[in-house]
């Protein structure tokens, strides 16, 4: 019985570790792109406010930059679901 209890607690600990680590992976993967998008958009808005005539070009590159940065968060999310549920 003691062995069973130890095995159960070991399995629980592994499940606990998996849940914590996958949660941290997703959270950390979302923080980086958040900072990146904030910086990117802040600089883009500043550029558009200084030179409204260049807004079209700035918006184009800003949108692509946002989407590229967001890919990092998506990769983190995919790693999370594969770690946790696959």
């Amino acid at each position, binding site marked *: 019985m003691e062995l069973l209890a130890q095995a159960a607690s070991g399995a629980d600990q592994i499940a606990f570790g998996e849940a914590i680590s996958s949660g941290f992976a997703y959270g950390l993967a*979302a923080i980086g*792109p*958040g900072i990146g*998008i*904030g910086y990117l*958009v*802040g600089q883009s*808005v*500043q550029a*558009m*406010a*200084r030179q*409204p005539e260049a*807004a*079209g*070009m700035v*918006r*184009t*590159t*800003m*949108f*692509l930059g*946002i*989407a*590229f940065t*967001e*890919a990092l*968060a*998506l*990769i983190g*999310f*995919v790693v999370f*679901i*594969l770690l946790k*549920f*696959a």
Partner: protein
Amino acid sequence: MSDTFVTRLDGPAPEQEIAGDMVRRALPVIPLVLALSFAVWGVNGALSSSYAIALVLVNFVFAAALLAWSARISLALLMAAALGGFLIRLALISVAILAVKDAAWVELMPLGITLIVTHLGLLIWETRYVSASLAFPGLKPRPSVGSSPENKR
């Protein structure tokens, strides 16, 4: 420098043009991705890949619509919409995937791989096009009506 709270950007929205381009470029590639997914993971893999492609395209279109809408109001709202939109879209993608993760037709591996590959592939494809058009804006000039015969050589 003009005030970001009152400056607004009227006119055509380049974000929506880019998102529309991406959807147009994705259409011929979708059968190829689905066939590949079907060959490796079977019917469930193809269904999961199609779900992932739909998520990626909706994500692009929603992001473009949000940015275009906010840019017509003010630059400050554009900034808020970009960062808030990132959180909202990430949450929506999470909910959309977690909602179906236990469904019988879902294979998580092709779903995840297609999500990343489609997102990055379409972006790289579009960036290649956009960077070429920004670097060489006069690459395909329209023929002028009154051009002289010397210029037509």
